């Protein structure tokens, strides 16, 4: 084992709302020879420090006052990638029971430290955790770069060595197998781990692999068993509710999320999930109650999200309280400059002003919402803008946005249902079927034309056409994957081209994100291999 001297000169960040605990930790670290120590008293300053600087070790108290906690901070900084995997995050708590809820591995701290502890105990724990980080450095670096096959190989090395980190390596290996689409292998691997010992992470890994493979019934059974075995594993509820939601069982999905909330009442992400499901169901009372909680808790905190304000405002408007929605949005804009031009908030404001009987203000808000190209916005925001257009009488604009939403997801019945619902409520009922058909046909025609040109040998033209379509319809896996393939085919036939290669890789990554099992991905990988054979590794 390496001595502390191997870990000297590390940079620490202490996050604790109690001044005396902060200074006590600082003096414990000083007695261990650590002098590069920064201090934060709350989530806001901690996030600011993490944005500016990188740290080797974060010592964070679980309770941070003002209703925020260390788990929320951890989830936030991991989600925004403010800390890399090489940073050690240690959660300090007086009572493990409070924090014994478990979530996805990437949202877990590296360790929990129970108060009170002596400086000597802290020293030993730091040494052992830093040793572990050092042993996993290569695995972590590859994970940060999302080079999954290399992660698998690096884990295999550790597992073969049989050292004390092999269980950690197994956990990461399974996750990497799923991330690079090797679902069958992942399932077999998790089953093998489970045969030795039933561990919640392995059961959950099996469920994720089954989900990714589309084995939804088996996945549901695995999740039910997992909830039985380890009711504190929140991720199980998240995935189960997603399956239920996809199957249109909104009541079941809500029930599952309620169960998770009982276990972790402070979890912001679950309240947000409840609001999303309730909104799909049209249950705005629940949207209001879930998001009022989130918005109140995150006010003036970096954990705040503009989308929460938009959805809550929308719920107020839908519940017949448009003034309340307008007030909420005004307040948000006053406190956060970046919200001033937010298209999502503008769309909700347009709807609220319309409902409040002020058409001029509604039109003004809508034109601000339309300043951003709707195609570049997330689908829920685009949908919100489309609804606002329809509600305020801008039929053409609303329908154009809806059509592009359909073209981004031509096969998703869930999206078709949302588009239909929007048209039924705010637009022309009965128009939906024709609009969806038009949208889908346009995409099919475009695709066919590209294929025809490709076959005719006009590879450059086909690639250009599909690239343009892929930029416009970033959610359409077929178009985006065909664009990647066409670009690579062009490169294979006509020689390497940095810009085209860059676009092809970007599109390939995008398809993997949209649908890791997309059949075209194998063709793309094969073509890349051929390009490398023909032009060398650099291509």
């Amino acid at each position, binding site marked *: 084992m390496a001595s502390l001297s191997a870990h000297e000169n590390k940079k620490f960040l202490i996050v604790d709302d*109690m001044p*005396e*605990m902060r200074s*006590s930790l600082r*003096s*414990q670290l000083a007695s261990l020879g650590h002098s590069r120590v920064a201090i934060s008293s709350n989530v806001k300053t901690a996030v600011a420090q993490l944005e500016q600087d990188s740290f080797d070790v974060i010592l964070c108290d679980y309770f941070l006052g003002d209703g925020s906690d260390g788990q929320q901070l951890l989830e936030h900084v991991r989600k925004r990638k403010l800390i890399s995997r090489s940073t050690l995050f240690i959660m300090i708590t*007086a*009572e*493990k*029971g*409070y924090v*014994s809820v*478990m979530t996805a591995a990437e949202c877990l701290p590296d360790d*929990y430290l*129970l*108060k*009170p*502890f*002596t*400086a*000597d*105990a802290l020293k*030993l*724990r730091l040494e*052992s955790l830093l040793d572990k980080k050092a042993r996993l450095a290569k695995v972590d670096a590859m994970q940060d770069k999302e080079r999954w096959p290399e992660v698998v190989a690096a884990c295999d090395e550790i597992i073969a060595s*049989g*050292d*004390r980190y*092999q*269980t*950690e390596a197994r956990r990461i290996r399974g996750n990497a197998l799923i991330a690079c689409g090797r679902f069958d292998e992942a399932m077999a691997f998790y089953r093998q781990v489970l045969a030795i*010992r*039933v*561990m919640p992470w392995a059961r959950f890994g099996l469920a994720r692999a089954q989900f990714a493979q589309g084995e939804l019934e088996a996945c549901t059974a695995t999740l039910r068993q997992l909830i039985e075995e*380890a*009711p*504190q594993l929140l991720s199980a509820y998240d995935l189960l509710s997603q399956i239920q939601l996809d199957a249109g069982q909104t009541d079941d999905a809500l029930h599952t999320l309620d169960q998770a909330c009982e276990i972790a009442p402070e979890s912001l992400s679950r309240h947000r999930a409840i609001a999303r499901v309730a909104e799909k169901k049209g249950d705005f009372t629940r949207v209001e109650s879930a998001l009022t909680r989130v918005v109140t808790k995150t006010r003036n905190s970096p954990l705040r999200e503009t989308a929460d304000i938009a959805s809550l405002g929308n719920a107020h408007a839908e519940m017949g309280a448009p003034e309340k929605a307008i007030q909420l949005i005004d307040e948000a804009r006053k406190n956060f400059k970046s919200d001033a031009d937010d298209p999502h908030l503008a769309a909700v404001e347009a709807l609220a002003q319309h409902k409040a009987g002020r058409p001029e203000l509604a039109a003004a808000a809508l034109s601000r919402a339309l300043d951003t190209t709707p195609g570049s916005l997330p689908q829920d925001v685009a949908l919100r803008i489309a609804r606002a257009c329809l509600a305020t009488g801008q039929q053409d604009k609303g329908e154009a946005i809806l059509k592009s939403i359909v073209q981004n997801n031509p096969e998703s019945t869930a999206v078709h249902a949302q588009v239909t619902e929007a048209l039924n409520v705010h637009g022309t009922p009965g128009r939906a079927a024709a609009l969806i058909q038009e949208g889908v046909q346009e995409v099919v025609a475009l695709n066919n034309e590209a294929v025809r040109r490709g076959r005719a040998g006009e590879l450059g033209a086909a690639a250009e056409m599909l690239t343009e379509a892929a930029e416009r319809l970033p959610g359409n896996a077929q178009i985006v994957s065909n664009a990647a393939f066409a670009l690579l085919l062009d490169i294979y036939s006509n020689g390497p081209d940095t810009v085209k290669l860059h676009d092809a890789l970007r599109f390939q990554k995008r398809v993997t994100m949209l649908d890791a099992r997309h059949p075209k991905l194998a063709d793309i990988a094969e073509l890349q291999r051929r390009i490398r054979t023909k032009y060398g590794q650099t291509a």
Partner: protein
Amino acid sequence: MRFAALAALSIHDVKNRLALMAARAENRGDNETLRDALAAAGELTRLLACYKAETGLLRPDIDAFSPADLVKELVTETRPLSQLDILGDSQLAPQSWFYDESLIRMVLANALHNALRFARQRILVTARESGDWLELCVADDGPGYPPEMLANPARPAPMSEEGVGIGLYLARHVAALHENHGFRGEVSLDNAPGAVFCLKLPR
């Protein structure tokens, strides 16, 4: 139920104060106060664990940990608190084993604090692999367990004047929560001739 929630919050608050007290004592080198603060915090941890055990809420969070690290940490933490020789032996310990680290630490810390009171000169904490079991033992050179404790080891004795009871009750409960392929962990007490507390966890 309301009282339980209130008690849990109070325990949390008191532990925070004890943590501050321990930090101040450590700063000025006052090991007696530090020892008492750590012991008091440990008592509260066990109290809460006991409540959870009785209401079925004590769920183990089992993962792979290093028994050698655990022994080293316990010994290092305890050594400054006493004049006794406190030794750790992990020569025969496995690289890693599966258990709930915080629960096992709680049980062993309790055994160690008991040994502090009865040992004459030395305490030995060992971790070793024996067949399909991990054995974590705390042995002292004191007078040993009273005969009635050894006679009826299964007797649940949450209350006793020595305060051993709640610890032993909890130790057995925690041991039994560690189950794999039908094998459950167990606790054994022995005099050799000093008291030997042993926690066995299945592979």
